[in-house]
């Protein structure tokens, strides 16, 4: 038997769950279909950083809108998911890096963010645990962190309470046009008719896009991440080296979570993203450079996830060019956690109001019809050659 609904959301990650929640809050009937379980892929295993510093200039309006939603999370879903306004310290090890920080700071300030510039002496005074390496930093107090393991599931529950049907362990096997809408079928025998469809299937999103004649050069990779045993709590902000070699934060129970480039290979078919031990040792060494007080702390756990990356390191967001009523949000290139709720809000603008005030043209899937500019991050953040990694599904 076929079910009818207004919107089908494919993919129960951060984007899919927030989109379902906001649609439900606007009174729309939604069915969310997830191939595994909600919040278990990169949405659930990422670093948990709600970072505003150093984003792509074109992404600031979206990021600022998203941060306002994060700041309201407890009100929205009755669960704070360990959201904390920790601040973000962006550190430079030399003058060239300091210049880079300055460029980032000017862009952020144009979008209303308050950035503090901190010299070498003040740096040690305010954060005495910093090592000798950092020469300067910028600090943004509005940056925050949350626990990714908890968020997507909590948001899905909130959507469920408002009537959204969450269908787990169901893989979409067939999507086709049905009048002005769609019929979606799953491997568990469900058939759903809907007016609009959201493709937020992350590293597995290409199958649906390609069913409607669109594609993107997405490949899969993962962020290698590490955590130490608990040590006395003293690092309040999340701290990031501007060269990307390390980013770390300490949670109040004492564990220090850290990550760093290059990213690790991921296999979306086998559903595995193993972290080679060499990356763990690299991460440990890079963390010690900035936070030498951790030198005796023990690393107890390592993990990664499977993320979709695009060569210009920008996501795909917006309505399909070929198929009105089909909306995309995937390929977040490892920085989807912060923008997730904002992207969901934009999708709901588009679905319900037919327009959005937040600029998103930069993220159209249309851009891949021509050769896109390859981001210099590709060389820096991946084991060369980056895009030769397994094509995302």
């Amino acid at each position, binding site marked *: 038997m076929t079910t009818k609904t207004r919107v089908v959301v494919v993919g129960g990650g951060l984007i899919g769950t927030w989109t379902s929640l906001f649609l439900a809050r606007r009174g729309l009937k939604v069915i969310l279909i997830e191939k595994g379980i909600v919040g278990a892929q990169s949405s659930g295993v990422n670093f948990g950083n709600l970072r505003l510093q150093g984003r792509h200039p074109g992404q600031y309006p979206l990021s600022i809108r998203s941060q306002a939603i994060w700041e309201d999370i407890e009100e929205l879903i009755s669960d704070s998911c360990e959201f904390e306004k920790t601040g973000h310290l962006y550190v430079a090890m030399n003058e060239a890096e300091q210049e880079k920080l300055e460029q980032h700071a000017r862009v952020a300030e144009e979008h209303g963010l308050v950035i503090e510039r901190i010299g070498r002496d003040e740096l040690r005074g305010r954060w005495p645990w910093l090592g000798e390496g950092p020469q300067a930093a910028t600090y943004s107090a509005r940056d925050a962190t949350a626990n990714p393991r908890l968020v997507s599931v909590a948001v899905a*529950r909130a959507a469920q309470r408002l009537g959204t049907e969450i269908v787990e362990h169901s893989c979409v096997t067939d999507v086709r046009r049905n009048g002005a809408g769609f019929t979606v079928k799953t491997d568990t025998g469900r058939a759903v008719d809907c007016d609009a469809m959201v493709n937020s299937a992350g590293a597995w999103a290409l199958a649906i896009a390609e069913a409607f004649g669109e594609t993107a050069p997405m490949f899969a990779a993962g962020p290698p991440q590490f955590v130490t045993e608990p040590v006395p709590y003293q690092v309040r902000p999340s701290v990031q080296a501007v060269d990307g070699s390390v980013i770390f934060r300490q949670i109040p129970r004492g564990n220090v979570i850290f990550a760093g480039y290059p990213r690790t290979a991921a296999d979306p078919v086998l559903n595995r993203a193993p972290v080679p*031990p060499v990356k763990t040792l690299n991460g440990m060494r890079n963390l010690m450079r900035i936070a030498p007080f951790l030198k*005796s702390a023990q690393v107890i756990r390592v993990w990664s996830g499977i993320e979709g990356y695009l060569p210009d390191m920008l996501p795909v967001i917006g309505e399909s060019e070929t198929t009105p009523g089909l909306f995309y949000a995937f390929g977040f290139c490892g920085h989807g956690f912060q923008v997730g709720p904002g992207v969901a809000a934009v999708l709901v603008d588009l679905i319900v109001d037919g327009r959005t005030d937040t600029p998103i043209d930069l993220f159209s899937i249309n851009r891949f019809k021509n050769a896109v500019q390859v981001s210099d991050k590709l060389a820096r953040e991946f084991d060369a050659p980056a895009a030769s990694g397994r094509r995302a599904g």
Partner: protein
Amino acid sequence: MRNVVIVGGGPAGIRAASVLVEAGLRPVLVNEARQVGGQGYRMPPKSLAFDIKALMGSEAGKYRRLHSLFASLQERIDYRPGTLVWGIHDKVLHTLCDDVAGTIPYDALILATGATDRIMPLPGWTLPGVFALGGAQVILKDQGCLIGSRIVFLGSSPLLFLAALQYHKFGASIAAVVDTTPLSAKRAALCDLAASPRTLARGVMYRAALHMAGIPVIDGATPLGIDGKDQVEGVRIKDGRGSERFMSCDAVAYGYGLKPETQLAELAGARFRFDPAFRLWLPEADADGRAGADLYLAGDGAAIGGADAAEASGALAARALLADTGRPQPATELMSLRQKVERLRRFQKGLARAFAWPVAQSAALDDDTIACRCEAVTVGEIRTAVQAPLGPREVNRVKAITRCGMGRCQGRFCGPALQEIVAGACGAPIADAGRLRMQAPVKPIPLHAAAELEP
């Protein structure tokens, strides 16, 4: 075959090394401990001047033979004591020795990683003064210390009797040995236990010796909790007849037999299957220990079989490796080793029934009881998470939501209980709860271990 590496310096690892040396190879033997012998035949530091006969009892002869075998091999192998293997990737072992990270590449790998204690949570089990049963033995053998002055041995394990006797010989007062499996279950397991009459007789002898020493042995008891304010003050049980009893003590040795240490097997590419007899996920291997390309498993790390089976399976794995690399092995030799391993592992299946893992106890646990001692996660938190809307029903997701298994031990100790608690809360078969996946490091490694390395 250039580089053959054995991980583990117990009976399986040493016997595998001896077979390879006889065939003219010079294997690397990596041992996490400073001394060979594994857990069972652990060599006490010379400074303790222990009487090995008193410590090892009927097994003293085997202990001496294994250590003299190793002494004869030491010059003919590349021996790496005090070396932890914390990761395996692309046929390279990642090691930690004296806090410095290193690597050992291999062409073929024999894993003889042994076993560790299997623990079921119990109210009060995290109080100071409670030790894992195997841990209590290690403290005695390795450091010459007793875990307390008046001790209850609690749980269900053949080691319960052995450890209690060892402690008795070294001057501890044993309040009681409390076995949670009833005698009727032991009688029912006799058929499998007859597979190794010598070991069976040894067990009966241990019991008799405890009796002679006037140490009370209580069968078929249900443990209710370990009591104490800041440390152990006593153990509360319900005995086989249903009456509640309190035994005053200052330490408890607690355990339910052993579980294989399979983390490295997983990182080396072994596949896993659920074993209903042990209610554990065990690595898949053929009768000779082949578990994948150039990967061999031996000893208790592959399947619990005890020291004799470990030696035989170590020899068998080494012979399989030789046969696979163009050195055919005598069929009669292979056959007799296989029969021995098979017979001794069948005996262990009997033991698993005679000394049962307390499934009912996991269902009866109070919500307040701590399940994960690293992260202080309670049984109630796990049940609440599982039963919530969109709640996880598989242990890796339960770990993500509750932190159970996320701490220092990475689920090595809470994992088996977590599977039971999740299955119980879901009302699903235990195999459906899955098993905690492994990533390196299998044990904690300090940041400064990486300091000396070139990027």
